[in-house]
């Protein structure tokens, strides 16, 4: 296990599995316990309400399975994850076609409790399980001129209604700069809440980059390519004015059609207060140095 990162959201930020099914009924009852725990855990907690397994797995953006938030949970059972293969190629010493097991061979799965912020101004907290992308890249052996990592999602037109409707130019592609990809926060997740990754969340393996808008965290990966040039990314191809390569969470840089200064926390109900969005989604201390000297309004 790498353990280069210590969760700042702790397990008390995640509703226990036994409780999350009727969290809303018992939440009043646990307030007292929470208050006791708060005195214990100092202030790293903030007032972050964790998201239930149900919320995380029923409110998704996975345009291959439809554009509605409830579409993926309804349609993603069609995703065929049998005999999944991931092509690792480009500027690496050990290119090849690997199963998930082969890709993760020798690496231990750890839990990361991350904030998740969608570009549409809503947010969750998700307890992911996975390995650091850096460990996978190190196994692949990144060559010296490898400056970027490109990712690609599976395309199964017969199983994916969004692909049939050409919502985007599929396959969905994403990319990271090498220092972003190697950052200890950057995760290749294979599960959440200790369970295998649900299809609608990007089974069997997906990227999680917690300081960037959710669409950077590409799902159901079939290809990882190390390149020397900035790779194209799906949303930037669809609308370069609205979606840049970096797409770091930044409350000061608005999306052209809506403000990014605050967001709705999923699971808060109809009368939930908006929450202020944090710079780099609250991971400023960890990642701000990656972008030193860059104009973040220009490289959005």
């Amino acid at each position, binding site marked *: 296990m790498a353990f280069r990162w210590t969760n700042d959201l702790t397990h008390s930020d995640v509703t226990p599995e036994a409780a999350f099914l009727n969290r*809303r009924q018992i939440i009043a009852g646990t307030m007292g316990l929470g208050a006791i725990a708060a005195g214990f855990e100092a202030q790293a907690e903030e007032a972050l309400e964790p*998201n239930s397994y*149900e*919320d995380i797995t*029923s*409110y998704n953006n996975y*345009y291959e399975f439809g*554009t509605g*938030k*409830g579409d993926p949970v309804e349609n993603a059972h069609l995703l065929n994850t049998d005999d999944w293969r991931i092509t690792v190629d480009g500027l690496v010493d050990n290119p090849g076609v690997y199963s998930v097991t082969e890709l993760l061979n020798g690496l231990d799965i750890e839990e990361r409790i991350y904030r998740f912020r969608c570009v*549409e101004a*809503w947010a969750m907290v998700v307890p992911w399980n996975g390995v650091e992308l850096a460990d996978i890249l190190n196994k692949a052996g990144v060559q010296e001129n490898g400056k970027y990592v490109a990712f690609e999602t599976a395309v199964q037109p017969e199983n994916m209604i969004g692909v049939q*409707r*050409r*919502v*985007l130019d599929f396959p969905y592609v994403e990319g990271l700069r090498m220092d972003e990809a190697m950052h200890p926060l950057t995760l290749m997740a294979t599960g959440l809440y200790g369970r295998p990754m649900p299809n609608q969340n990007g089974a069997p393996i997906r990227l999680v980059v917690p300081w960037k808008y959710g669409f950077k965290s590409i799902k159901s990966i079939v290809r990882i390519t190390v390149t020397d040039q900035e790779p194209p990314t799906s949303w930037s191809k*669809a609308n370069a004015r609205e979606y840049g390569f970096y797409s770091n969470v930044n409350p000061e840089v*608005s999306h052209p*059609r*809506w*403000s990014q200064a605050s967001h*709705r926390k*999923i*699971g808060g*109900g*109809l*009368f*939930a*207060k*908006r929450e202020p969005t944090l710079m780099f989604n609250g991971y400023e201390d960890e990642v701000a140095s990656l972008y030193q000297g860059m104009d973040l309004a220009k490289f959005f």
Partner: protein
Amino acid sequence: MSFSQTANGALRRVPAGLIYVLVTVWTIWMFYLAASDQMGPEPINALEREYGELALKLLIASLMVTPLRNWTGINLIKFRRALGVSAFFLVLAHFLVWAILDVQTFSRVWEEIVKRKYVTVGMAAFVLMIPLAATSNNLSIRKIGPLAWRKLHMLTYPVAVLAGVHYLWLVKGFQIEPIIYMAVILGLLGVRAVSRR
């Protein structure tokens, strides 16, 4: 007796007020579902969309009344006012959910209206509907005069186009629903342009 005569005969027994009853019950029911966590993990946006989409459907329905009569003889004219006024109240509900539950502060509501084009367009449609809703009664028709009243109510056409643009503009990627709505709206206005020649 032709089909349209039979249909019109049956429709005569249906009070127009039924539309208000149905829309009111539906609006309250949707609010209840959202407030009681039965509209998914994120009910604010879901409720906003429910209200906005039914408003658009009712607006389109009101625009269908005349072509339907011309083509099939089925006469829904007595329901048209209820359709239009209901559309207005749903737009009002849509606006209130957006402003109070979604955006939440007055200064930010204003900022969004001025800064975001799809909000500006939606807001323009809403404002243009106010005089229409306010004059949707017999007294106003008499006071303004039927000709001027009809002219005023042609504002429905730009309102429908603005509403269609509002929807087209807010989605991400290539989505089919707002395109279908827009096509229907433009089709209904096109039919009028042609028949007026």
